[in-house]
């Protein structure tokens, strides 16, 4: 079994697209669509890396990242953040909170695939 990627995202079409791309590259993709329970989900079953959307129902991706980085069991899991808001301060905030990567929607599929390969390999 390939390594597990947890995709925390609420937009169904984007979930489908990313799942398709990463599955084809040999990763196991787990989906979580809700912001409020995302941290629990990670703790319960820590993945090899996380793709985290910023605008989630219930809770912002930044808050989830802060919690993940504050918890010993989760703080070393690589996190790639995704956002459609496309603002520089979001990128800064993400990096300061300890994201490993920050990607703006729309993304190129190959870029996502390469970044995931880098982060999991590291």
């Amino acid at each position, binding site marked *: 079994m390939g390594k597990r990627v947890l995709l925390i995202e*609420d*937009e*169904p*079409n*984007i979930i*489908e*697209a*990313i799942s*398709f*791309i990463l599955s*084809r590259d040999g990763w196991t993709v787990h989906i979580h669509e809700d912001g409020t329970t995302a941290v629990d989900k990670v703790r319960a079953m820590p993945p090899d890396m996380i793709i985290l959307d910023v*605008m989630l*129902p219930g809770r912002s991706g930044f808050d989830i990242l802060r919690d993940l980085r504050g918890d010993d069991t989760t703080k070393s899991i690589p996190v790639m953040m995704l956002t*459609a*808001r*496309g*603002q520089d301060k979001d990128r800064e905030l993400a990096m300061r909170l300890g994201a490993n990567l920050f990607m*703006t*929607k*729309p*993304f*190129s*599929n*190959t870029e996502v695939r390469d970044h995931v390969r880098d982060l999991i390999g590291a």
Partner: protein
Amino acid sequence: MTTFNALIVIALAYVLLLFAVAFLAERRAARGHANWLHSPLIYTLSLSIYCTAWTFYGAVGYAARSGLEFVTIYLGPTLVMVGWWWILRRLVRIGRAQRITSIADLISSRFGKSTQLGMMVTLISVIAGTPYIALQLQSVTLSFAVFAQAEGVFWQQTDFNRTAIWVTIGLAVFTVIFGTRNLDANERHHGIVMAIAVEAVVKLLALVAVGGFVVWGIAGGVPQMLDRIDATEIQLWEQDSGRWVGLIFLSAAAFLCLPRMFQVMVVENADEQHLHVASWAFPLYLLLMSLFVVPIAVIGLELLPAGSNPDLFVLTVPLDQGQGGLAVLSFLGGLSSATSMVIVATLALATMVSNNIFVPIWLRLQATQQATMSGDVRHVILLSRRISIAAILTFGFLYYRLSGGGTALAAIGLISFTGVVQILPAMIGGIFWRGATGVGAGLGLMTGLLIWMWTLFLPSFGVDAVISQSVMDSGPWGLHWLRPQALFGITGLDPLVHGIMWSMLLNAAMFLCGSLFSFPGPLERLQGAQFVNVFDHSTAAPSWTNASTGAEDLLIMAQRIMGSAEAQAIFEQEAQRQGKVGYLPEVTLEFIERLERELSGSVGAATAHAMVGQLIGGSSVSVEDLIAVADEAAQILEYSNRLEAKSKEQERTARALRDANEKLTALSIQKDAFLSQISHELRTPMTSIRSFSEILREGGTNGEEQGRYAGIIHDEAVRLTRLLDDLLDLAVLENGQVELHEQTGTLADLLDRSIRAAGLHDGVLEIVRQSSDEGILITADLDRLAQVFINLISNARKYCDAKAPQLTIRVGQAKGRHVVDFIDNGSGIAAEHQSLIFEKFSRLSDEAKAGGAGLGLAISREVMHRLGGDIAYLPEASGAAFRVTLPDTTAAAVLAET
């Protein structure tokens, strides 16, 4: 030869005659038959006290010594009477309106009833006036001595003194009897005025008789007289033009400022119209008085032995010529001149001393002794006035004794004038300039008095008497510029002109500066307004007999001070308390006290008291004056209010700026949020489109996948387009650039169209219509209205969570307007979200399910506002319920139909 004893009998008889005249006049006045006393002629004659013994005897001496310069003493008053009589008119008007009793009272009253100024003016007047009284005593005793000498008796100093004492006592008795008979409100003394009018005639007759005798009896006619005058050196005297100007100014100013002149001119004035007559009659009198001065002087110099006193030519020439009767007449003329002056001057000075020095001190003592002020104050005042008369005459006598009755005294006339004209700046400034203040007046008077004392009065006692020769020559303590007759190093001036110039110049300068740099108190402003604007008001004092008129005027005044509404409230409240209808209460003592307290909050206690007191007391303060001062107070208040308002305004502006800034910040946050939202809404479908199109391009997907992904790309592209449409629509609506196309149609048709367009093909949502009122006609942009309906219907389709979703569309009326309610059977919108649903991007539930960007309700609200209607959420309903209020035009359309 008239014997000396006979002369004494004649003099006594004359004095008794004067007593009788005065007594009769008093009695007639007391019985109300005073009309003939109030004639312009009497008034004019009473002014003749200007011509004292100094003028009667001294003018001839003056002419014999200095040529025509004596004319200046007559020219000054003539100028005032002819050219400046309007100053007198103003003084008389003010004097009557303000019940002025003396010139000290005038100055004190003008500058806020200042006790200090009253004392200062009194002091100046007494200092300057006492030598003048002494001068009169001297002239009377000298004239007695002349007769004694004519009998071969040469008087010793004791004889002079004895005579002077008796004359002084006689004058004191007369003045006390007729000057302090009563405390008349207007301080008029009919007896005295009548007596001095008689004396005025006597002295004019005497001088004209002597003059006539000299011209026709001795010279033998006018031409011969003129020849003899030409033969003397009198017209050869070189006249010092500076001295002339100075002396004319001095006599003119003294005419206005002399306490005794003020007494007869202003205080004793019965009718302002008398001034018109006096303005030509008095100069005529002066002309007659001066006509024979030069002839008498010329003849005296010719006939009498060298070394004779020219001051006594009026007496000695007739005596020398054996004209005993004429000499006695002349003697009576001189006696008249002296006594009339002394009587009026003493009376005036005594009034001033009593009112401005004695009474204030007495009142203060009473206050400190905690004694009640119950007793009759009138007795105290009359007594103080009698004592003052005696004191002033005693002073005059003492001055006469101490100065030795010599030549020093003769020179005192003009110096005395200079002293008293120090009052001029304060007086003229006070009655013409509202900006004049008590501080300025005080400074001016003080400065003038000091300079006068230093340059003229003290040196007049003679060398080394008060000021030593070394000080005269080189100044005190070696200060050269302080030499009494060369102040500030200005030398070469006549000492008198020098004194007049410096004292008046610095007096006026200090008065001006003091006034400009000080701020008058409220009472001072009030008095200033009254004095300066004395002609703006009616001659009569306003009467307050009518209580309601008083109330009205009080109200007007109160409104000026406190503001309209506040004053009205107080008056209405009082009227209500008194049980009166309307807003004007009875002016009761209680109310006045209350009003005064209220007013004092605005203008201070003193002013409030003065204003209310004057208004109620029916005293001569006119409403206009009160209003003028009130306006001033109001202006000051307004100014401070404006300042306050300005600072409030600034505060408001600052707050507005802060608010605006906060709003801008909020807006910019909102704008950021909005942009983030748009970005998110746009990028999300674009992400799907890009991602799936890349997947498709890379290949390796089966047919089913290809179809599914192409479908996603298509749907997301549509979603993107719709979003952009909505955004543009909202932008147009919000900017108000939307074009409305009015149509008319029935509500039923519009709803049918909307339901069809909402695309309920799946048949999940059931529409229930309560169509009873659907027949109404609507005139509006129906396409836009349909857009709102469609949005509401499709929202119900998207969000209604009932098992069998149902939307009820009900037409009804609310608050007189037609409304359409859209109510579904779902769980509705949580209360905390209800306020947000009309905001942009306020999508509440799962966005994918919604399939919109959350702009629908925001757009609907904008549309309804543009149409003149409204859309609102109905919280009472069980499900999600929206009420669309139709535009106003609907109602009219319905009426047209029915």
